[in-house]
């Protein structure tokens, strides 16, 4: 059970949060211009990495804010937490 450092509320138990999958997938600005394959890439394709992964989380039973984290899925260590709209930390890739 993770301890997640909500950028708005501080450290809270994982049970207060819900996970929103892979981060930094931007909704295309002009979906109608996309081919079926390109749209499918946005819609369905998600990474499932063993190692450093960028994820969206929502403090659903708290401030209800969305934010991003960097997590090492091999040991579940959360390496960084940052707000929506902020650039991902560069030292992980």
């Amino acid at each position, binding site marked *: 059970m993770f301890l997640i450092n909500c950028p708005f509320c501080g450290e809270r138990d994982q049970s207060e949060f819900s996970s929103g999958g892979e981060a930094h997938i931007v*909704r295309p600005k002009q*979906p109608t211009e996309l081919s079926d394959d390109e749209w499918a890439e946005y819609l369905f394709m998600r990474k499932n990495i063993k190692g450093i992964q960028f994820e969206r989380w929502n403090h659903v039973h708290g401030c209800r*804010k969305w934010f991003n984290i960097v997590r090492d899925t091999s040991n579940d260590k959360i390496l960084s937490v940052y707000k929506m709209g902020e650039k991902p930390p560069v030292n992980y890739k």
Partner: protein
Amino acid sequence: MPNYRIHKTEYIDETKRVSFKYDGKTYFGYEGDTLASALLANGIHLVGRSFKYHRPRGIVSCGAEEPNAICQIGSKKDLTEPNVRATELELYEGLEASSQNCWPNVKFDIGGINNFISPLIPAGFYYKTFMWPKSFWKKVYEPLIRLSAGLGKSPTEPDPDIYDHKYVHYDVLVIGGGVSGIIAAKMAAKNNLKTLLVDDKKILGGSTIYQNNESIKIDDKLSSEWLKNEIQEIKKLSNLTIKTRTSIAAYHGYNFLLAKENLTDHLPEEKKKNKIRQRLWKIRAKKVVIAAGSIERPLVFNNNDRPGILLSNSINKYLDYYGVTCGENIILFTNNDSAYETSISLHKKGIKNIIVDLRKSASSELIKQAESLGIKIYFNHVVTNTFGYRKINSLEIMKLSEDGNTTVGNKIRLSCDCLGMSGGWTPMVHMHTQSGGKLDFRDEDQVFLPKENSEDQISVGSCNGDFDLENIIDKTVNKINKFLDIDNQDYQDTNIICSKENDKRNIWLLPNKIPLGKTKCFIDFQNDSTAKDIKLALKEGFRSIEHVKRYTTTGMATDQGKLSNMHALGIIADTAGVKMGTLGTTTFRPPFTPLTFGTLVGRNVGKFFEVVRKTSMHEWHVENNAEFENVGQWKRPWYYPKNGENMHDAVQRESKAARDSAGILDASTLGKIDIQGTDASEFLNRVYTNAWSKLAIRKCRYGLMLNEDGMVYDDGVTTRISENHYLMTTTTGGAANVLSKLEDYLQTEWPELDVYLTSVTDHYSTASICGPNSKKILNKLFPNLDLSDENFPHMSFKEDKLKNINCRIMRISFTGELSYEINIESKYGHSLWKMCIEAGKEFNLTPYGTETMHLLRAEKGFIIVGQDTDGTMTPSDLQMDWIVSKKKYDFIGKRSLYRSDTIREDRKQLVGLLTDDPKEILEEGAQIVSDVKSKPIDMLGHVTSSYFSPNLNKSIALAVVRSGKTMKGQKLIIPMENKNINVTVSDTIFLDKENKRLNA
């Protein structure tokens, strides 16, 4: 009655005699006993039958690892508990226990016949044999297995006990109250760290607390005496919490642990009453010290499972802690020094014993001591067989060959009434691995050890592979100082004298002249798997330990292989000719020992099981005899039976009344989201399929919401209250998810939009009045409101006061009738409802529930998201293309509506179905076909909604059917168990296609 209690100890209170029943017979023990020690004191070893062969089995251990002595406690239907380990259960007055897994009784067991047909029950027996013939399953195998096997009986009535949960936070958690745990806890607490020490036993001290060998001393005292002092000292530390009878069940990431505290299991029944039985501790600790200790290993030889064969160290504990000897003529069979401690203890109490040691020779302080006491030792010998049916009475030993692979020379037969075995020690690395830690293998004594200790977790003591006392104390002190970054000097000058073990020899499967196929060398006592089974699995091609484990069921019983996993691994490695460390281990899964469901559930039982949401009109519904339906967490009136009506009759009456005169529905549970901001219209444009910019103020519009994959997600009516203010309604079940989805898009995709969302579902109560007389009822309630179609047309919104209280009134309809929804602040909801009922009396205003609502909307072909849709339906599939804007550049899900898959013509599409026999009501979920003769039958779709319509006097149904749009008028078949029902595809709208009733 025999008495094997041969001396007094400080842990047994001989002034407090306790009577208990075992298998119906009354015995006596003392306060301080476990059920196992009390049974042994009464000379009882035989406590059960093995699972597969029904061989007689006895008590093996004195702790959580016990595979055999598991019993059923009590016989009451609500309180009886199966699979309780007698070695852990503290004795109390009036305890009733019985042996499990034996029928008709433990001494005469019919399943014992399996023992004689055991060559027919090899590994994978159940997989191989019970496959065929199929008919044998129901008639022969299953009844037999059920009768003669099984591990105890579950209670059949609800558990009346109270359970509790508690969250705690500590700087340091120490798991295990043996010598290393006590030292760690003391060091942490004395350095101002808030510390919790847990131990599963009644008292602290581990196995050192009853240690009484003169060659093991700390500061010139017996180690047990020294430790008692330490315990007295730590009890004085104010920031140390000590929890005994508390065992860690699970170790999750981020140092989150679950512990079970037993509060009343040791008390007599009358003292248990009204007390919390068990408490689940949810612990967050900054740092965790694992001092979980180690478990003695059995040895694997022929017939190593007879009653009277125990772990050597358990014999020692029963003797020195409980004052009970396990026999009068004991043989100890060992490959290490620890059995010598047992031997010396027995000798000192006058119990005759000899040692069989498979090491060629060995020397240490302990061995010298045993030799000087004249204890007979057979070095380089191995036990090859044991005898005695209900209890061991003799055994055979033979000399080992030079390489240890075979036996040589003559058999020597030795009589005995008890055999202690010691195959070395297995560090309890469960907690370490549960938390994600890796293991290393130490060849020298064949143990898995924690590989690395992280900055927030450490293993100390024998669970870290440190076995002699000097090693344990020195290493623990050094490691804890480093781990906690402190400089504790308490143990700087502690002087430790102990015997050092110098010689080791381990053989996982001991050699025998008898071919393996004819031996019974048990590895897993509880699941009855033998060395032969493991070898057979390997022969049949199994390689992975996880597969061998499942195929042979080794380590899969309630003890989770605490005594058997290492031997299984060892034998696999030896047979496959690989190094044991390279095989890995099986996964150590929580819980460490079984938990009761009660502990896991805690207080969340009965009415606390789940949150229940009630509308402000709820009491009226109850008073008026409503039957309720659960919709999400909401309790919604389902129908209101009158004068003993059944559901069908009530729904027919309610539906007719709503169309003929007036009906009223509690619609408060619909989700309501208040949407404000200068970009509110733009936001709605993006989340609904239709256009919103041009919706006039004080008008309402129906909207359909898709997922990004183009599938219908939710629907509802949204009202424009003012320029930048909307009120959205959602389905009852979808309310929370819709709000989350909208927030997600606002925060992550469109943060530039000026929009604010507030859930107001609970803030407003809603009474929905429909039917031709609804306008008259409204007029009585709101005499000043102009209800004319010109002033207040369909799909519009007004505000008015009801006795000075503001109401929001929408003229919208989910039934196809003229209909008004009155919203009022929730605290006035009950009054509003009663005033509506009163005003409607003269018009036979009939309260109706969800079932009638579903019927009425089905007559009109209105969908219910989640009933007629299932996450695979597009608006076009629902024949709702009219609601999808062609002009809007984008909205959620738009692009997906013309993917190659969503534009297929042969998707399942919503249609109406009419049965050829108008009285025949279809079953929702029934399959639809066009041809019952072809094989396999081609399934075209299924029925989603089905009712008998009293207004049309015929059965109607909605269904999704492949290419349904093009099938109007076509005949289809609904094949049921006993008949085929003929239907015709129809329009989805069954009543009032012209929408005349909306303006009736």
